[in-house]
């Protein structure tokens, strides 16, 4: 399993152009791009999960073997700072994995030229929808810019766009690349403005149909209810109508780019949330609305509440929300600054458990076991069956972020871990015995169980875990499985599968 060439050296060689056809060597790339494990893995002990593991379960998609000790050495604050300066984090290996997806860099016009399927899938449209979802999963699993990916996920839910409404998927690929990702760790104002000029959003929420003679209030309603003020943020039905009037004519052209149609615009005077917008403003009316919404106090409260829910608890504690709002207000809605406050808050380490949503469960499982994933569609289909395919929540409120929305249909969540350990996940490979060797546990079954538990949970196994799993491993006989024969090794493999399928792994 050890690579001959160092990963860095290999990637440099690739970048130098000695290997041109990336697609021809994608298996090689997957292998070389896979993070190296340290020779000896550090295994936290004690009754409580190591606080760095907690950090990596919230500010990242779960720890990889070896990551804990790195972050510990660096210090948590420094790691957070490094993650916030995400552009300086080397992600070459990931970039190579991304090369297999053709449509990610295309503009809307080229994407729209793809055709050949109806609303129910198949053909080129499928390709576009899948590639964006596959890319999202691959990045979550492999990117070194973990906090950035977690926040991309947060804003993707906040400005949720459903790929499968009419032709939205063509524009969503552009929206992800040009709206969400560039502004993920920037100012909220810039993100909101980019989103309001995004053909994907305008099309998805019907603002492309919003004209003076037939106003369509859909986007006007959602931009206040879901993107800025929140449902109790202090706006009225009249405000929705007035915002809709301000946004008449904001749409897209035939090339799938933003275009303002002045002939559709209602140029009369409007009043939005008490602010008078004089007649004759043209496109500026909409820009003024965005400014009013960004500066409204409800917006910082609403968005910070959601952030605290995402990172801390289903019922977000008011003191942490207040701290975030205060930072938001003093930094003009700077996501980096707000995250710094949130992640360094004294109550962060004692936050209650959050249930992993299926995407987080899958990603954290692949990370925890240093599994390789070839970026195929099958895992996207599996996420779909678990109800959490990226960009597939039909309504604009985004995927639920509370346990009650996800704590049913448990069998697929359990089978996911059992499939992984039994090499039954398509395009996914992992090597338990390599990990065992690095934990000095490849010859002792009992040590393997306990060390694997410490690796994955960053604490000792509980009495229940240890008793239940060891009872299974020994088939109730107390007879230790022999790791020198296939039967014993398989029994331990199944035992570790159960450990990964256990409730502790379902929580972040």
């Amino acid at each position, binding site marked *: 399993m050890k690579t001959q060439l160092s990963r860095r050296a290999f990637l440099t060689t690739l970048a130098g152009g000695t290997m041109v056809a990336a697609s021809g060597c994608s298996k090689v790339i997957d292998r070389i791009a896979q993070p190296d494990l340290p020779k000896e893995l550090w295994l936290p002990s004690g009754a409580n999960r190591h606080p760095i593991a907690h950090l990596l379960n919230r500010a990242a998609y779960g720890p990889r073997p070896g990551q804990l000790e790195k972050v510990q050495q660096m210090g948590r604050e420094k790691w957070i700072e490094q993650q916030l300066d995400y552009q300086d984090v080397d992600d070459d290996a990931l970039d190579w994995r991304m090369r297999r997806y053709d449509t990610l860099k295309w503009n809307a016009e080229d994407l729209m030229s793809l055709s050949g399927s109806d*609303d129910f899938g198949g053909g080129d449209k499928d390709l576009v929808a899948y590639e964006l979802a596959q890319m999202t999963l691959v990045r979550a699993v492999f990117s070194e810019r973990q906090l950035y990916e977690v926040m991309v996920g947060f804003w993707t839910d906040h400005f949720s766009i459903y790929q499968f409404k009419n032709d939205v998927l063509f524009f969503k690929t552009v929206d992800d690349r040009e709206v969400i990702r560039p502004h993920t760790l920037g100012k909220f104002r810039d993100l909101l403005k980019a989103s309001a000029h995004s053909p994907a959003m305008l099309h998805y929420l019907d603002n492309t149909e919003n004209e003076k003679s037939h106003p369509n209030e859909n986007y006007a309603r959602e931009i206040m209810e879901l993107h800025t003020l929140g449902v109790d943020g202090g706006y009225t039905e009249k405000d929705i109508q007035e915002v809709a009037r301000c946004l008449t004519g904001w749409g897209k052209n035939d090339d799938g780019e933003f275009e303002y149609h002045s002939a559709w615009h209602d140029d009369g005077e409007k009043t939005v949330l008490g602010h008078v917008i004089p007649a004759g403003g043209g496109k500026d009316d909409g820009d003024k609305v965005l400014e009013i919404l960004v500066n409204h106090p409800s917006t910082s409260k609403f968005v910070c509440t959601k952030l605290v829910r995402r990172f801390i608890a289903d019922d977000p504690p008011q003191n942490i929300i207040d701290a975030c709002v205060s930072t938001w207000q003093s930094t003009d809605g700077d996501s980096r600054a707000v995250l710094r406050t949130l992640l360094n808050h004294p109550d962060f380490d004692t936050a209650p458990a959050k249930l992993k949503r299926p995407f987080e469960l899958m990603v954290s499982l692949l990370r925890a076991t240093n599994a390789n994933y070839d970026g195929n569609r099958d895992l996207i289909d599996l996420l779909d069956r678990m109800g959490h395919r990226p960009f597939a929540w039909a*309504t604009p409120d985004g995927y639920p972020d509370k346990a009650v929305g996800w704590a*049913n249909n448990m*069998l697929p969540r359990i089978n996911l871990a*059992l499939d992984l350990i039994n090499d039954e996940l398509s395009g996914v490979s992992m090597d338990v015995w390599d990990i065992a060797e690095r934990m000095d546990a490849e010859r002792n079954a009992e040590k393997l169980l306990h060390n694997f538990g410490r690796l994955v949970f960053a604490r000792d196994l509980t009495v229940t875990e240890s008793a239940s799993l060891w*009872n*299974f491993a020994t088939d109730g006989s107390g007879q230790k499985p022999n790791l020198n024969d296939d039967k014993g090794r398989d029994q331990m493999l199944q035992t570790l*599968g*159960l450990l990964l399928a256990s409730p502790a792994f379902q929580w972040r």
Partner: protein
Amino acid sequence: MSDNRTHLFTRRQWLQAATALSAVGASRVLWPAWLPRLAFASEGVKGDTLVCIFLRGGADALNMIVPFGDDNYYKARPLLAIGQPDSSDGVKALALDDFFGLNPDMRPIHELLMNGHMTVIHAAGTPNVSRSHFEAMDLMERGTNGAEAGIGSGWLGRHLMSTSAEGDSPLRAIGWSDKLPTSLRGYVSANALRSIADFHLHGDTRQTDQMAATLSAMYQDGGAPLSLSADATFQALELVKQIDVDKYRPANSARYDDSDLGRGLKQTAALIKAGAGLEVACVDHGNYDTHVAQGRSDGLLSGLLTSLSQNLRAFHDDMVDYMGKVTVVVMSEFGRRVQENGGGGTDHGHGGAMYIMSPHVTQTPVIAQWPGLNSDFLENGDLQITTDYRDVLSELLTNRTARTDLNIVFPGHSPKSVGAILKD
């Protein structure tokens, strides 16, 4: 095609028979090979078992329940219209009353509609005007018209939550599909099953029982709501293991076909008869998105309608002894445009139809406040909605399930009476 081997009772006769049967049901002499003996079966389901069939893709209600009394129907559909019942047309509707007729491919359910075992609510649907399939389906399954965003759960999920109690069956709610239907979201014990046979733990199949026991022990301390959900899953696994659906033989020679619908209904029947405590089953049917080649008796729609009505009839015949405590409801995300298109099909529309099968329905085959198909009465070319789908579902829950809280199931909606289904 029509299967008359099963005698159809009148509703009154049926109810008398059902009362008599429930007394003998407990002392079944022969225990069929597929049927498990269930610990909690004695509790029983308090209200009806609800079977919800969703016709995916926007079913063309106008060619299913044909408004043959409306001239504008024939003007709008020169190629696709189904003939009047007394016309010389080779494809003609089966009269339901003096205005509506049934598509001839749906003949197997004609008798049910005429004898008070089924009813149709026409011009029904969601007030939301989305013509996107998925958005419309999603809103309908979540039981909202879009104004109450943030409701991540489905209407059935909330119904089940509002009625859940200690000792409920782990199989209260099933979606017969790969993924959990949106309507069931929010209820912790809901499961998605492709089939009874597919519902099992993966991993080493020789050790399934030991694996389940190990997991179950760990999930006891799993933290709410996970511990509850997992507990239901392990109980369901245990229960499902005992049901040998391959050996299940439907009663009265009822024949289900091999579609998702047929398989889902057949397994639903097996679980109900097994006394598994099933309260809600969701089944999908079709791809009703007939933009092209919709046809009359030979197109895409014809095959779907044949399968739909054969399976509905099979379920009815198979379940005839149980129907007093089962309600089937059929719906779709929207109907289709009144005017046929240039491709021999129909485009996305608005108003559609809902179907209810139960001996407790009204004796009226079609309930409709018909808005008319005259262009003055259309809404952007579509049939208007005169009955909110939530009114139908509210009535169904109120009259046929033990207890429900409509404020939770359909928040912000004040239900109106439809007169489709009765308490007794």
